[in-house]
């Protein structure tokens, strides 16, 4: 009977891990600092192309939030919103900014700051994401306050 109980508990843990497949929660920073591939997830910051295609209201939102968030990135502390706006006009400048963020986020210890930065990108995209009923319900559910 004891063996049965233990096996059942083990089965539950296994099934929970299966259920969470494909529903990744927090974005985890890369552990390999030597290779930073900005074309693969996690996407801490939009690429120049992705940002350039956004609508004006999305860009405005993005830069405003980013300006605050970058205060926690030592290499980018003091960056002003004007600096960011200038960077948006040059693929090279934006790429340099992006690399600094990715290098910072390669450190596991910075995960909270980096999640915040990546969340800004997701929020900017969500501003004009598809709004069919299923998506609206899912978005409401994920933004509902969690029960304690």
């Amino acid at each position, binding site marked *: 009977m004891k063996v049965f109980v233990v096996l059942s508990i083990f089965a*539950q843990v296994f099934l929970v891990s299966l259920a969470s497949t494909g529903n990744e929660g927090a974005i985890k920073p890369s552990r390999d600092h030597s290779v930073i591939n900005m074309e693969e997830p996690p996407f801490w910051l939009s690429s120049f192309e992705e940002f350039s295609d956004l609508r004006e209201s999305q860009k405005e939102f993005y830069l405003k939030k980013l300006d605050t968030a970058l205060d926690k990135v030592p290499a980018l502390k003091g960056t002003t919103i004007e600096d960011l706006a200038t960077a948006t006009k040059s693929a090279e400048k934006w790429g340099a900014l992006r690399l600094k963020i990715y290098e910072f986020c390669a450190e596991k210890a910075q995960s909270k700051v980096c999640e915040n930065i990546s969340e800004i990108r997701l929020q900017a995209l969500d501003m004009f994401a598809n709004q069919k009923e299923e998506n609206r319900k899912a978005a409401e559910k994920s933004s509902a306050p969690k029960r304690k």
Partner: protein
Amino acid sequence: MIQKSRLKRTIQSCSKIAGQLAVFGSFIMISQAGAKVCPKNIAMSSIYFAPHIKDYCPTHTPCASFKKVVKMQGSGTLPGNKVLTYQGKVISLGSCDTVIGAAGKCLLPFISIAADARHFSMGDIISMPSIKGKTIQLPNGKKFIHPGFFVVHDTGGAIKGANRFDFFTGSYNLADEANAFGTKGPDETKIMTDKSDCSQTKRFTVIRRNSKLYGSATEAIEKALSEDSSGQTKAIQNNTSQQGIR
């Protein structure tokens, strides 16, 4: 002695109850483990569309059936490149004659897809070889030969995971007979409506923006759409930021 046997009986009862709870819990977990999850290289797909008023209402005034489907789909298109949102707003889409996605680009029927922005950059391309060469009818009546590539132009709250995609089918709804990805489409493509269908037909690979294959994939898409002479190539070329909102 009596206490020992009583204790033994108590332990046995508790073990029995715990065992039964564990089994019950396992059944709950099985049911909540969800709808079938496909392997990571198989797309879990569904479709979405932007209804056009002409398919629902006798005049250009939004009627009840159109408003109902707009509420479900999030938006619907009106004449003159305008869109009616589920909130009742009418927005201009500039030169876009479908709707604009999260990426800021005009959505292209049977090319644009919504994907999880945690796993994809807007503009990433999904290669699905099984679709290549299929003749697809567009909502404007023209046909094109599918290049086998799709572009991430959108996202959505329910689109979560590295293999979850929502395929845009223009103004074609799920049951439209002309919708190749709809429930009445050919067997090999109607499975796009079923996210629990994990057949090999939906096997895909990702082509990231700066990868070697990106340029040729983009060219293949442009070529396929330019050959349909429906004006969709114009949509690609003019796919710069628009002022319209969903």
